[in-house]
């Protein structure tokens, strides 16, 4: 038995030879890469190695991108039949599949997420989103918005750093299928896969200007939101920035969809399959380092099983492999940036000072890069900041409840409403709880599952609109009675 207990994994590093990273990148405007003026470094958060230099788009770049998108919309994309538009999207999906390894490696280098996740989740799902939406392009009259739904025109899209390529796919695929052209801005710390996607657009011979990618920080994002030449804004990010965007576009004709923050409750009832629930708790909060808006960051345990679940959870957490994201055995990679690590560290300290009991899995963290051990706080109450605010890291707050109604009341006691989890082997209870929870996505006896056919989005302050399925597509079409 001793030998089995002390079993060690040998390193199984993925090769980075498959990617070529240029020392410097520009923007992708009108089908061409154009040089930027100012640049900022993008680093590998697992090593702090500078990977490349990314252009910081200013007003002139954003103007050029919007102009290119408008021209492509007017002269090409809006005139093309849905059937032909769809074929471009199918091409893109196929090329992404062909170059999947390249995308996965690049995503892991730039973002810090484990290669296992970028390879098995981010990239295949991104390709699937293009494949799914490709098929909508010639069927828009069946999208539920009347017989002649119309595209908005030029869509400005701003995406976060947690799933860089996947969020690009969630935004670009439905926009193009519906007949819009786009100006997309990736997050400042994770631009590389978006720039590789630009190459895919070239290989697919997508007409120039249909997809334009400008890189930069929040100031570039604000220029897109404020640009008078843009008809629709789609944003994924924090609720704070979402509200700023909502106010900014309020007096304009722009249509908006927002995919914002969350503080999902993951509820484990006494009749749950405990071992499965423990796997679900781990997946819920530690998937993608907890950099997930729909993460199950508030664990609600029924009091009579709390001790057993916590014991098993700690034992399971002790087996989470934290470290080199390029290692195929790694479960938990690097925190995406120094800023994010600081935010996680600060909120965790607040958790300590407010009386939560911290427990972190024993693990050795690499000396370079940004790391945070998988952590839980027990003894957390509703009023604690770590139970109310999005930490966006591998930190779980644990609360308990006595009755199912108490679980629902606690779960719903938040301005957010993005997702929730339910663990119970009793069908009627699962359906009851899924009805009572005020959230857009309910995972029952599972967690963090995504699919292009399945609408995703939040209630309340978690956002406006859905992404995925017919509901997500409709956000990129006009035809409903309201403005």
């Amino acid at each position: 038995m001793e030998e089995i207990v002390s079993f060690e994994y040998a390193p199984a590093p993925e090769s980075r030879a498959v990617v070529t990273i240029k020392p410097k990148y520009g923007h992708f405007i009108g089908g061409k890469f154009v040089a930027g003026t100012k640049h900022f470094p993008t680093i590998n958060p697992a090593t702090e190695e500078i990977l490349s230099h990314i252009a910081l788009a200013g007003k002139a770049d954003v103007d050029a991108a919007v102009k290119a998108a408008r021209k492509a919309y007017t002269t090409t994309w809006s005139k093309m039949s849905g059937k032909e538009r769809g074929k471009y999207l199918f091409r893109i999906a196929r090329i992404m599949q062909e170059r999947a390894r390249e995308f996965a490696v690049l995503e892991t280098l730039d973002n810090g997420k484990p290669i296992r996740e970028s390879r098995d989740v981010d990239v295949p799902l991104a390709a699937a989103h293009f494949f799914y939406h490709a098929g909508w392009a010639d069927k828009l009259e069946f999208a539920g918005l009347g017989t002649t739904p119309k595209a908005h025109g030029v869509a400005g899209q701003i995406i976060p750093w947690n799933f860089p390529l996947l969020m690009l796919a969630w935004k670009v695929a439905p926009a193009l299928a519906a007949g819009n052209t786009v100006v997309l801005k990736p997050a400042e710390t994770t631009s590389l896969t978006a720039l590789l996607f630009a190459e895919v657009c070239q290989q697919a011979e997508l007409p120039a200007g249909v997809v334009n990618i400008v890189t930069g920080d929040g100031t570039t994002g604000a220029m897109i939101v404020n640009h008078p030449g843009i008809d629709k804004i789609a944003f994924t990010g924090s609720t704070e920035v979402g509200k700023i965007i909502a106010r900014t576009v309020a007096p304009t004709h722009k249509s908006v969809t927002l995919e914002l923050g969350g503080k999902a409750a993951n509820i484990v009832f006494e009749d749950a399959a405990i071992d499965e629930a423990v796997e679900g708790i781990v997946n819920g909060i530690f998937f993608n380092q907890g950099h997930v808006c729909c993460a199950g960051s508030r664990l609600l345990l029924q009091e009579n099983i709390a001790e057993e679940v916590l014991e098993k959870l700690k034992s399971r957490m002790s087996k989470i492999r934290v470290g080199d994201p390029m290692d195929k055995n790694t479960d938990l990679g690097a925190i995406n940036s120094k800023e994010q690590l600081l935010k996680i560290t600060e909120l965790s300290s607040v958790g300590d000072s407010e009386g939560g009991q911290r427990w972190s899995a024993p693990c050795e963290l690499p000396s370079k890069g940004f790391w945070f051990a998988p952590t839980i706080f027990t003894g957390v109450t509703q009023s604690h900041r770590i139970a109310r605010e999005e930490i966006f890291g591998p930190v779980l707050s644990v609360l308990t409840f006595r009755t199912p109604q108490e679980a629902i009341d606690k779960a719903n006691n938040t301005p957010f409403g993005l997702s929730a989890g339910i663990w119970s082997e009793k069908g009627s209870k699962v359906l009851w709880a899924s009805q009572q929870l005020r959230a857009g996505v309910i995972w029952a006896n599972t967690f963090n599952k995504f699919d292009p056919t399945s609408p995703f989005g939040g209630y309340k302050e978690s956002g406006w609109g859905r992404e995925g399925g017919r509901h997500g597509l409709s956000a990129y079409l006009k035809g409903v009675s309201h403005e």
Partner: protein
Amino acid sequence: MSNRIDVKKTYKLFINGAFPRSESGRTYEVKNAKGVFIANPCLASRKDLKDAVVAARAAQPGWNKATAYNKGQILYRIAEMLEGRRAQFVDEIISVTGATKAKAEKEVTDSVDRLVWYAGWTDKISSLSGALNPVAGPYYNFTIPESMGVIAAIAPENPSLLGLIDSIAPIIVGGNTVVILASTKAPLSAMSFAEVIATSDVPAGVINILTGKKEEIAPWIASHMDIDGFDISGLNSKSHGEIRIAGAENLKRIYAFKSADPGRILAFLEHKTVWHPIGL
């Protein structure tokens, strides 16, 4: 010529199934098209709005829980009650707006018919916007429309009855409760409609009707943190921008509508997606 003196009605608010005066004691004067005094309806205050929202919030879980069949029957019941009081509504529309009898009759007829139309939507809207999603994995995955919560509305000035019904009905079809500000210049139909609601098995608090000034109440609605959505169809489009800015504080869903269609019902519904594994 009769010497009988008319018994005139005191027009009050409709909050939580009761007819209170404004807590502020304020009223305003309504005159007809020729400038003749008609009534002193309540000039609702911020506190009246708050009371109405509290009532709407308290009533929402119960209304949401009512079966679609039940909700449909109650909406149909409103139509039945309105049909029975056609003459009163025709008279009130004529007295306030000076409309011809034919025009007033058409508005009341359309109002009754519109209620019947919406009544039929309660148990059909989910087949329009629900879905069973064919995800690439062993999961049962469905999306259903659900109520959003408490929705506020500003009814259009004109038509004062049909516009009111076109605002209220789509909001409550899917399980929301509503706080609505009636037409300022022609509030009589709205307050009489409250009497119809009060006798239609609509649970108290599901529909709350205020009278007053749009420009005063709309910003209070927009910044109210316990209102989930806001129908601003009856509001001058010049003020839509500032209302949307104030509403962003809790990311209220704010819409202005042009017509009566199922999109109007769906605008104030959320869509919930549920995943469950399939397996032995």
